[in-house]
């Protein structure tokens, strides 16, 4: 029983972090058909910015998180202005932006390496202590991560479902042409989505670095997992991505316990292959067919 509680607790924490990382990626793919390979670097940037704001500028931890989110939102906006916008005018956008964002990611990671050095740094945004359920100690840090993710996801859901801007984002991701014919200025939507995705990446980066540590390459692993989650859920399906993130987080925690840490990533990949054989468009993905 204790083992089960332990697995659920750490699985939910992992899932929550993955969910926040994945939603941004999924939103961007859904509305722009853009695989943002710089997403992992934005995560890293967020982690370091929070650290720098708290340690060097003396910000309150909550403000540090907000500052990190703001910086990454601006970075997302910069990606839109300097990479997405020019490439959208040319052909083969999807391939070009894929390569371009790999480059942008490398630049951001190198900047972090140059500014903060290669050695792991602990994330100052951390709470100590734990709660005890049964015989299991669950760190307050995990609970804080879960709550932060919950707040972030609720905010995104409300934005998408209840606001005019959110409705325009959903409309654009369902049909860009139709959204334009409704008077939606799609350029603006793209900019908003990339900024939002950057902000979410920062939150996720801060959470991940608070239980691991800050390193310039810390974004790679969560980004890879976020991609896997996106594909399992069906690319561009935001709500599916949240669900898939939580399930995969729980699965990862379970495999780590049952088979050992080294098997967790292999199991994840195996699962993806199986899912894609069974449903090529992902669990919640749908090939969009227009009936006439």
């Amino acid at each position, binding site marked *: 029983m204790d083992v089960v509680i332990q697995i659920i607790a750490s699985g939910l924490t992992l899932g929550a972090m993955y969910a926040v990382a994945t939603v941004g990626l999924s939103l961007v793919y859904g509305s722009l058909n853009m695989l943002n390979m710089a997403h992992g670097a934005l995560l890293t940037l967020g982690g370091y910015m929070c650290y720098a704001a708290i340690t060097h500028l003396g910000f309150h931890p909550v403000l540090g998180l907000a500052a990190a989110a703001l910086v990454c939102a601006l970075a997302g906006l910069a990606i839109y202005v300097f990479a997405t916008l020019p490439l959208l005018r040319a052909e083969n956008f999807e391939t070009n932006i894929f390569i371009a964002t790999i480059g942008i990611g490398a630049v951001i990671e190198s900047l972090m390496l140059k500014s903060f050095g290669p050695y792991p740094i602990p994330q100052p945004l951390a709470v100590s202590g734990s709660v005890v359920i049964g015989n299991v100690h669950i760190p307050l840090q995990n609970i804080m991560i879960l709550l932060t993710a919950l707040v972030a996801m609720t905010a995104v859901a409300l934005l998408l479902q209840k606001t005019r801007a959110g*409705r325009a984002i959903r409309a654009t991701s369902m049909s860009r042409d139709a*959204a334009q014919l409704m008077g939606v200025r799609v350029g603006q939507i793209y900019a908003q989505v990339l900024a939002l995705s950057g902000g979410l990446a920062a939150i996720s980066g801060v959470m991940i670095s608070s239980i691991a540590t800050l390193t310039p390459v810390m974004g790679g692993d969560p980004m890879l997992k976020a991609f896997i989650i996106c594909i399992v859920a069906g690319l561009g399906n935001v709500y599916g991505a949240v669900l898939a993130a939580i399930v995969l987080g729980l699965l990862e925690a379970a495999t780590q316990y049952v088979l050992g840490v080294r098997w967790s990533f292999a199991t994840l990949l195996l699962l993806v292959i199986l899912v894609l054989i069974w449903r090529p468009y992902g669990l919640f993905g749908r090939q969009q067919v227009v009936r006439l």
Partner: protein
Amino acid sequence: MAEPILQLKGVKSGYAGRLVLQGADFVAGKGELTAVIGPNGHGKSTLLKTISGIVRVSEGEISLKGKRLDTLRPDQVVAEGVIHVPQGDLLFPGMTIYENLMMGAYLTREAGSVAERLERVFTLLPKLKDRRNQVAGTLSGGERRMCGIGRGLMAGGELLMLDEPSLGLAPIVIDQIYEVIFDLRHAGLSILLVEENAERIMDQADSIHLLDNGRFAWTGKGAELMARPEIVEAYLGA
């Protein structure tokens, strides 16, 4: 003819490397039902996409009541009051009918006029009211067409452009759709209608324009078209 609402002068446009409209000249009158007919693949849909700004004009001029449209973005064209209901509806499949209709009124900020238009759309198309919470992806062809037209009406535009509203529908449903279109025209809305199926509109349209290979080959009234069986036969195969 009534005063012109929409005017095209020598418009050329097309897709990467292929010119579809090759110098189209055209006038649609205010408060009239203007029909564009012609065989498949001769630029009817491209004409509407060019007017709405989705396809860029490479040469020529488009103006709405004297104001240039061809330099505007699609969202600005909508703001000018030109509403394009595209072929195959292009509804937002994951949204409910209600949400689709609300997207139609995206540029209208005053809640009062949105509510008023919604009421009008529901009166005109009562089926949409019954199914307002149904997701658009699950609708039948006729319901989707109605939702597409209703969504267009929600914008409260001055010129409604409809791309083949009868496409793929059963004859009885086509009749219902056209009844709605003719009602709108009698209520004073300017309508630009693209249709392959010329007979349906011959006696109702104020003017008919035949689009052939990216140019207008013939313009006249429905009765005049019926008096020219050779045109009907050559272009429309009827």
